[in-house]
């Protein structure tokens, strides 16, 4: 397909000024006008709370909201929209999931009740974002399950070690699909296969992957997967938690209130059907409608096409960055296996100083540990500068990054 970059860039109002190089999509993506319009329309024309009310705005709001849920289901090839829980983002998804798995008692028997062993460990990776990792650490403390880490091998995972760590004692395996630091797209199918052989539950953080890697929960063959809307063109404050129906039906809600009940009496309450029983309170309705529009936008271009286009930019960036003396790229070098994230360190300057110089040239990057301190420790650095790419970036953005980095080198060397 021909990738009409100018047409794509025109969809993003924030890119209308010349000389602006937004290379921070891994933190949050830009928003296409179509998404802004969808949200705007909700607030202007038919703002109402969803479900039950009979006036026409409430009916429209419910239709659009539920339509967005169906789009999210299709986006990840879920069997049905019943498996889609609307959350505030990946962090809430991860917290809800961990709590409900714990409180429903399914961790002790693992995902497969026919494999009855004493589950004693949780397996995750050194690559996780804090949103996945910290809830797991807390879970491990509460349940006395041991938290084990699949180590890095180069910029990917060490699958040979994973094979040893995932045993019949493993209750849960939680793995990130694409790293928000190294860009590495992990072989989640392989990990899921190892986990299911021993009856463990498999959870996937797809936040950095969403919009870059086609998501197919059936092909991945996992039990739960989550992501945020705001890294895939939707507004902030909305996200998705998908849980496979047979597992979801076994789970108890961990958050209580309105909307998640079917009836409440003085001595207790009955839960609403799935997925509503996991959706206490009023959700980010406008945000969810925006997420639906974001999915439309991504699918119009095609996630495969985005990946192919972004890979080329990432590959160009890695080559250019490595040609600068003192710069080391800490990212998956096989661009086909990289979700558009290129982190690097400069021996001449700290990431904060690099980002400051770059910001003056309107090159927007992010310095720091990117909510992945364990990964940075494994890479033996405190912090990195991260350039992340999406469908609206160009090689000119990379050239601006490189030119600005040369300025930083001149100042600090």
């Amino acid at each position, binding site marked *: 397909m021909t990738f009409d970059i100018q047409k794509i860039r025109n969809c993003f109002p924030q890119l209308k000024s010349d000389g602006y190089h937004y290379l921070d999509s891994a933190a949050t993506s830009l928003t296409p006008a179509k998404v802004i319009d969808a949200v705007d329309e909700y607030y202007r024309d038919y703002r109402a709370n969803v479900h039950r009310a009979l006036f026409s705005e409430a009916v429209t709001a419910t239709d659009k909201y539920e339509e967005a849920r169906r789009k999210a289901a299709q986006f990840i090839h879920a069997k049905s929209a019943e498996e889609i829980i609307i959350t505030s983002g990946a962090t809430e998804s991860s917290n809800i999931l961990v709590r409900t798995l714990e409180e429903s008692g399914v961790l002790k028997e693992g995902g497969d009740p026919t494999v009855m062993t004493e589950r004693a460990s949780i397996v995750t990776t050194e690559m996780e974002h804090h949103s996945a990792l910290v809830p797991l650490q807390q879970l491990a403390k509460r349940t006395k399950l041991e938290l084990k880490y699949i180590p890095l091998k180069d910029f990917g995972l060490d699958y040979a070690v994973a094979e040893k760590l995932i045993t019949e004692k493993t209750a849960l395996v939680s793995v990130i699909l694409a790293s928000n630091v190294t860009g590495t797209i992990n072989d989640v199918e392989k990990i899921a296969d190892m986990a299911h052989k021993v009856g463990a539950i498999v959870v996937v953080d797809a936040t950095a992957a969403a919009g870059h890697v086609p998501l197919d929960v059936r092909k991945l063959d996992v039990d739960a997967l989550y992501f945020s809307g705001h890294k895939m063109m939707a507004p902030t404050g909305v996200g998705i938690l998908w849980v496979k129906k047979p597992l979801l039906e076994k789970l108890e809600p961990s958050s209580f209130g309105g909307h998640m009940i079917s009836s409440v009496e003085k001595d207790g309450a009955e839960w609403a059907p799935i997925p509503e029983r996991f959706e206490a309170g009023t959700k980010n309705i406008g945000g969810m409608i925006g997420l639906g529009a974001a999915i439309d936008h991504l699918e119009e271009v095609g996630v495969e096409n985005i990946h192919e286009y972004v890979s080329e930019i990432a590959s160009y960036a890695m080559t250019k960055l490595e040609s600068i003396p003192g710069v080391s790229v800490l990212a998956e070098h096989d661009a086909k296996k990289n979700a558009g994230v290129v982190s690097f360190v400069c021996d001449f*300057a*700290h*990431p*904060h*100083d690099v980002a*400051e110089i770059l910001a003056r040239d309107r090159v927007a990057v992010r*310095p*720091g*540990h990117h909510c992945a*301190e364990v990964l940075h420790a494994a890479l033996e650095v*405190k*912090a990195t500068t991260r350039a992340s790419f999406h469908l609206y970036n160009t090689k000119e953005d990379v050239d601006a990054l490189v030119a600005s980095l040369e300025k930083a080198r001149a*100042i*600090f060397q």
Partner: protein
Amino acid sequence: MDPLYQEHILEHYRHPHNRGRLEDFDVKHKGVNVSCGDDLTLYLKWGLPAEGSAQERGTVLKDIAFEGFGCAISQSGASMLSDKVKGMTKEAIRVFEPADMYALYGTTISPAREKCALLALHTLKEALGK
């Protein structure tokens, strides 16, 4: 000249003063910039004033050293501040304000870099209570 990375700041960054650790110290205190993960460890040695009453005994900062990982702003700040406070009384350090710290930089520090610029001062203030 760069508006932020002025020559004296870069000089302190490239060749920091009082960098390292003290073998003989009274206080060791670590400060962290939570926004970026940078850290700074201060070593303080309190001593007797050269002159003055017995009440002031032990209230002069005789020696100071720092180590840690950070950007040019936080590291040069630690270097400049350590020069400035060496020999000062505890009371004088107590009233040393962020504005005094900015004066050492002698340039405008943007809100985004405030935490970097004040890391050394905040760590020192915390260390006073130890």
